[in-house]
């Protein structure tokens, strides 16, 4: 039973270690910020997920329910896309170029908190045209 638990935990730990290494290598190897945004998602979902599955199995064989591990899983899986989206919005705002060519429609699209101001400016322009 002890050997079975160790084999199971070690299997998930080695899978998680592999994906953490993949995330770290992709962080250096990929040439562009928008490609580099892909690298930590691998290590956040598969790497951290495998480590937490291993921790839950280890806690279950120790005789307790791994409640903080479940909380870490929920928190990491909720906040990873939110932070990636915020970083992509910051990159679009700073007008970083992508290696895959020009993407003008995404550069011209206003950010969510600029949409109100953009509509106001368009309205002012239209009213000036009406005056002229």
């Amino acid at each position, binding site marked *: 039973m002890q050997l079975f638990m160790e084999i199971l935990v070690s299997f998930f730990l080695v899978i998680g*270690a592999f994906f953490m290494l993949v995330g770290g290598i992709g962080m250096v190897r990929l040439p562009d910020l928008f490609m580099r945004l892909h690298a930590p998602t691998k290590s956040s979902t598969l790497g951290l997920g495998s480590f937490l599955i291993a921790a839950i199995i280890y806690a279950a064989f120790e005789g307790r329910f791994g409640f903080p591990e479940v909380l870490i899983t929920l*928190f990491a899986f909720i906040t990873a896309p939110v932070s990636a989206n915020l970083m992509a919005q910051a990159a679009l705002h700073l007008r970083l170029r992508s290696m895959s060519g020009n993407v003008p429609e995404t550069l011209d699209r206003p*950010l969510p908190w600029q949409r109100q101001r953009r509509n106001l400016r368009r309205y002012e322009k239209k009213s000036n045209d009406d005056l002229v």
Partner: protein
Amino acid sequence: MMILPYALGICMVAITLSMLLCLYRLIIGPSIVDRLLALDTLFLNATCLVVVLGIFWSTTSFFEGALLVAMLGFVSTAALARYFTSGHVID
């Protein structure tokens, strides 16, 4: 305890290598968003390292520490990204 210490050693070596690669990106990053992305990945790797150390020493309090590290990483990433985008964190 036959193969679990070896697997934990492999995990610690892999996470440390990943942290070193993220530190390289944090130093040479061309733009400021690259450095923010490297910082976010460093927080993630620190969370994983705390989880692995919690298995290594078989204590329960390390997992609550990992939860704290994850929350701190998300709040700092969100605040810095918002600051780079709109110039102020809170409207």
